[in-house]
């Protein structure tokens, strides 16, 4: 705004008023008034014999003392006798004070207008004031000068006037030098450009003037004799005063030129001061023959006028500037009103756009659900390589499209202020590990090392929005991988407890990628804006990710920053505030493990990795677990260190080495170690960021006991090393120790949940979506009953018992909301058990969840349906139905039979399975009835038939 205003002022055409010049800045009436002030005393004195003299009060103080007066009366008499001196002193001080005010105003003038001329002239006035002050001190007998007072007082007058004339001329010459003959606007522009230079000039000129003026004062004050300056009976009573008089006449053309170059009231005032300057000098040079006489006093009065004129001119400039500012303020107010209106309009448009985007994304997500789901199903079928390629391409494209839609939806939610954060308990370490696993795969594909440093004391169990944190992490890490072609991507997670009890997480994603230049670094957070368009072309992306991540960080009470060096890499850091989950006392991984970490205590470990960060992570994890942990950044260094330690009789017990290292890799290092018996054959553990099929047997054969793929997750190193060491000292042959072999069984079990005898009603009008959901639910062993709309669903609930209902919100005839309400009413009427109803919809805007809950639904699940979300919902609402997966999987379903069936029927197997399930249910009912009737034959026949059918579909 400021820049625009400055540009406007610079570019505006020179107004007529600016072109007019002198009288536009100094009103004619003031001009005439000044002439009158300067000429009138002369006229009154010369033609009307009016005296301006201070009458001398000739009095004999000694005699007055004999009059018997009070002290006060005597003091009065003494003051009367000093009237002339006091008047002179007052006039001089008035001039000095005005000169100083003038100088101050010029500085303020410079501050406002950046007009360098004003302070330069102001400094001349100030320095003149300094010499005037010296003269005033001399006349009031306040100086400690060496010379006689009768010479000092008149000489200092001449000195002050002469100095004033000279310094004014010098100041004007400097000003003329600085302001070239340009148009006013150009001159203004130049002055504005040279702000700092102007300041230096002002300081320099001020210092010079002050040094000169103080030097002059010092010289005069220390002179033993001074020349006579008064000749009362001569024709020219004060001949020295003719010099400044002449100088002022010389200054006239200079001041006129200055005014023409810098049109202002101040420059006009400077030109006008010549009138009182010249008349002052004339009165003094040709009129005043003694102190305090009429011409003397006129001269001094006019001297005050000399300073008053530029002072008044500066005030006029201020008034003018104020008036201009007022006009500008009025204009700005009008603009502001217009801007507010425009802003409101834009905000309304933005909200509408956000609503539109949300609706659009909703509309797109529904068919996308079908595309992704069916493509997934398609990929599960037997496809030719070409078909497989096309299907995978379709899946990738659909996922990319979904990601884009999700970004747009998030963006529109943030824009509309409708993004709500969840507050649920979760395991931060688990979340980070999950994200890291995915990112690590991408890193491997690009040959980039991925490192994870979940620092030791970082809190795990917190309450917050894991989905949004995951989103930020994915975004930053995906970007890091995307823009890094070699080197590493490092994810560091730290937490700090705040006095309020909250946890502050500092999560940093560092990469060694292309980096961002300083000019572009601010742009990365702009919406739809990557560092430059070429980046978009090369790497793709919407440009929304970072913006959304920053918004999310801020919504979580933190911030997102970036630090980057072009060509060297970037570091994105975000801080979020979450609550500590004090209810969760679950111990960390490994604590319940069968691995005994105590075996590590007496051991010495050597970490070998060309990456210092990786070494640091290893050492940090080992801190407190081992006697000594040392790192080295090369295989040769490792060998040297091992040899040295062995020679000292303190060999290392474990060597954990990276595989990919320059010159000598992990495999070669291991071979070298094992080839040298003097190295005491430490336990060898390998870390690799590029695992390959068959690595396990290869490295086991070489002699490694442990094997880890990067990134290394929290607390893994001590567990793997302990397990590896335990295996190495075991007498039995043990397999290669990996992270999987040391993780608890519970972790593995989680991936295979099965629900026992679970009947689910799936109300969904869209056939494709229904098919996708059915397929997922079938994997959990659920019995699914489909319904095409709310009415059908309600009818089915009336007829049968269900363990859970998935209810689409938008359906024909009766929507999910109404159907849910009616189900709840039905339950209330018959006093039956409450069936969990899970909203199953493509809506994702704020308020949807509340609306679903208000309608009587219990939870909310957005489309497209994701397996893990579906699983979480099932575990949450049907925990009693979750069966022991091992027993179920191994004893009920024969997957080989099912797979054969699937392959043979080319997708039609589901119909057969469905028919089988219906048949099985009916048969079970018939068997139950036959048993109730003690009809053993019927029971046998029915059971036999069921057994045969079950074998056919693998339901052994």
């Amino acid at each position, binding site marked *: 705004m400021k820049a625009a205003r400055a540009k406007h002022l610079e570019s505006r055409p020179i107004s007529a008023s600016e072109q007019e010049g002198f009288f536009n800045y100094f009103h004619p009436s003031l001009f005439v008034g000044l002439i009158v002030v300067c000429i009138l005393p002369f006229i009154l004195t010369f033609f009307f014999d009016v005296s301006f003299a201070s009458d001398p009060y000739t*009095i*004999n103080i000694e005699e007055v003392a*004999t009059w018997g007066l009070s002290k006060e009366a005597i003091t009065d008499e003494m003051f009367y006798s000093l009237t002339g001196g006091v008047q002179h002193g007052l006039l001089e001080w008035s001039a000095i004070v005005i000169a100083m005010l003038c100088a101050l105003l010029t500085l303020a003038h410079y501050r406002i207008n950046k007009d360098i001329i004003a302070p330069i002239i102001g400094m001349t006035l100030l320095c003149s004031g300094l010499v005037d002050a010296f003269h005033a001190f001399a006349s009031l007998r306040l100086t400690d000068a060496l010379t006689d007072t009768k010479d000092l007082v008149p000489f200092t007058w001449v000195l002050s006037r002469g100095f004033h004339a000279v310094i004014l001329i010098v100041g004007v010459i400097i000003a003329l030098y600085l302001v070239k003959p340009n148009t006013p606007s150009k001159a203004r522009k130049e002055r504005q450009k040279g702000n700092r230079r102007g300041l230096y000039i002002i300081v320099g000129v001020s210092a010079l003037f002050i040094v000169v003026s103080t030097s002059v004062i010092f010289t005069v004050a220390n002179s033993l004799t001074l020349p006579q300056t008064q000749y009362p*009976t001569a024709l020219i*009573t004060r001949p020295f005063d003719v010099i400044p008089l002449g100088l002022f006449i010389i200054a006239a053309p200079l001041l006129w030129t200055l005014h023409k170059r810098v049109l202002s009231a101040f420059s006009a005032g400077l030109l006008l001061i010549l009138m009182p300057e010249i008349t002052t000098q004339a009165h003094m040079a*040709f*009129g005043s*023959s003694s102190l305090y006489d009429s011409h003397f006093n006129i001269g001094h009065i006019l001297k005050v006028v000399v300073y008053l004129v530029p002072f008044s001119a500066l005030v006029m400039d201020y008034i003018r500037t104020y008036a201009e500012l007022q006009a500008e303020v009025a204009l700005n107010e009008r603009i502001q009103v217009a801007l507010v209106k425009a802003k409101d309009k834009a905000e309304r448009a933005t909200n509408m756009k956000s609503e539109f985007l949300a609706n659009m994304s909703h509309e797109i997500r529904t068919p996308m659900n079908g595309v992704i789901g069916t493509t997934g199903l398609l990929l599960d079928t037997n496809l030719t390589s070409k078909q497989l390629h096309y299907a995978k391409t379709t899946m990738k494209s659909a996922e990319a499209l979904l990601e884009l839609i999700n970004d747009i939806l998030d963006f529109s939610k943030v824009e509309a202020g409708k993004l709500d954060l969840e507050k649920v308990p979760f395991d931060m370490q688990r979340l980070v590990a999950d994200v890291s696993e995915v990112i690590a795969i991408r890193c491997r594909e690009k040959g980039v090392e991925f490192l994870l440093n979940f620092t030791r004391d970082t809190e795990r169990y917190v309450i917050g929005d894991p989905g949004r944190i995951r989103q930020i992490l994915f975004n930053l890490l995906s970007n890091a991988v995307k823009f890094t072609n070699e080197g590493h991507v490092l994810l560091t997670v730290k937490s700090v407890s705040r006095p309020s009890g909250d946890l502050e997480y500092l999560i940093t994603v560092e990469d060694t990628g292309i980096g961002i230049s300083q000019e572009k670094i601010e742009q990365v957070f702009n919406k739809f804006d990557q560092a430059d368009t070429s980046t978009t072309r090369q790497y793709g992306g919407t440009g929304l990710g970072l913006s959304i991540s920053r918004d999310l960080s801020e919504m979580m009470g933190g911030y997102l920053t970036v630090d980057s060096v072009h060509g060297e890499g970037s570091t994105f850091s975000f801080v979020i505030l979450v609550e500590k989950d004090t209810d969760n006392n679950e111990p960390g991984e490994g604590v319940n493990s069968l691995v005994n970490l105590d075996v590590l205590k007496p051991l010495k470990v050597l970490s070998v990795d060309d990456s210092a960060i990786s070494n640091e992570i290893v050492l940090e994890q080992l801190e407190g677990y081992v006697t000594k942990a040392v790192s080295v950044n090369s295989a040769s260094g490792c060998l040297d260190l091992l040899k040295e330690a062995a020679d000292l009789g303190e060999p290392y017990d474990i060597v954990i080495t990276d595989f990919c290292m320059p010159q000598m890799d992990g495999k070669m290092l291991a071979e070298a170690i094992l080839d040298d018996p003097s190295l005491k054959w430490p336990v060898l553990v390998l870390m690799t960021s590029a695992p390959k099929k068959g690595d396990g047997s290869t490295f086991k054969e070489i002699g490694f006991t442990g094997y880890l793929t990067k990134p290394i997750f929290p607390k893994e190193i001590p567990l793997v090393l302990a397990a590896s060491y335990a295996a190495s000292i075991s007498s039995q042959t043990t397999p290669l120790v990996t992270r999987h072999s040391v993780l608890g069984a519970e972790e593995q079990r989680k991936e295979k949940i099965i629900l026992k005898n679970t009947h689910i009603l799936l109300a969904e009008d869209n056939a494709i979506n229904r098919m996708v959901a059915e397929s997922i639910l079938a994997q959990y062993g659920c019995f699914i009953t489909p319904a095409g709309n709310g009415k059908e669903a309600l009818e089915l609930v009336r007829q049968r018992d269900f363990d859970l209902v998935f209810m689409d919100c938008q359906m024909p005839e009766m929507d999910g909301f109404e159907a849910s309400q009616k189900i709840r009413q039905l339950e209330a009427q018959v006093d039956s058990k409450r069936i969990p109803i899970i909203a199953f919809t493509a809506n994702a805007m704020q308020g949807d969840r509340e609306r679903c809950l208000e309608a009587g639904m219990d939870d909310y699940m957005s489309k497209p349906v994701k397996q893990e979300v579906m699983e979480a919902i099932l575990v949450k609402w049907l925990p009693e139905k979750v069966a022991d997966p091992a027993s179920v999987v191994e004893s009920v379903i024969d997957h080989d039979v099912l797979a054969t069936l699937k392959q043979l029927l080319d997708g039609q197997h589901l119909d057969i399975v469905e028919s089988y399930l219906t048949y099985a249910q009916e048969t079970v009912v018939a068997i139950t009835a036959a048993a109730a009737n003690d009809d053993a034959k019927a029971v046998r026949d029915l059971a036999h038939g069921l057994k045969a059918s079950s074998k056919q579909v693998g339901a052994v």
Partner: protein
Amino acid sequence: MMMRLRVSFFVFFMLGLGQTHSGAAIAQTSQVTPAHVFQITEEALVELDSILEHQDLYFNRHINKPPERQPRHVWQKSREVIVKLQAYQKMSGLEVFKTPQLTVKVVMPSDVKMLAEQILDAMRIMKRNYGVSAPDAVVSFSTRKTPTDVYLNLTKISAKLDFLFGNAVTPSDVYHIAVTIRNILQNMHHVRAERALVPFASIPLKGKRPRDVYEAGFALQAKLKGLEKKPGYKIEGGIARVEVRGSRITPSEVLDLLDVVLADVNELARSIGIKGATALSPYEGKKIPTDVFRILREADALVETLL
């Protein structure tokens, strides 16, 4: 005069214009008018200025023109100047001029002219005594001059003499004038008292300043104005108007006022038929403003008896 010359010079300097002085033609008449007296006092002023210039002294005090003055006032001012010149004459061993006596008669310009000439003579003698070799000044005659103009010149001469001699008017200088006024009023009291004299309160006075004395003189003059309105007290031009001065009052201002009062009191005495000269009270030294104040309060009480 010098100042005007300088100003003219500046004007020439500034405007580059020459200017010729065309003085008015000197007109001599047989009848003495204030203009004649003025001419003499002008010459006396020139002579005095030459002495000051010779002494390298520059008198810079501005003296304002007084309100209208009558010849009797001018006569008193002339007497004041002569008294000052007598002091110089005594001090310098020169022949001392006689002190002019107050006469109870209408003062005419010719009476003043006599004193003015005496002053001019004394001035020229003094000039020579100071060693000033300049020829005697001759000032051209100017018409339309009033007693007030002459009074102004005499006031300037009086002030410049103080400046030359380095003297300031003292309360003692004022005192004997005040006593003279009181004496004349006493005479008038004897002739025309309409009520008994209320003795001036014998409250001890002290600490009076010239300003207090001036106010007392002013109060006395106000009463005289009242007296002058009574039948038989009519005088030419009435009681003189005196400018009210501010707080800066010196014995000089008081003397100036009392000279005027003396002239008017003397004329009032004449108006009621008191004849013969009235002796100027002899000079007494070491007087202070309080003494003058007391005398003026006595004079005030005497006027009260006449009202």
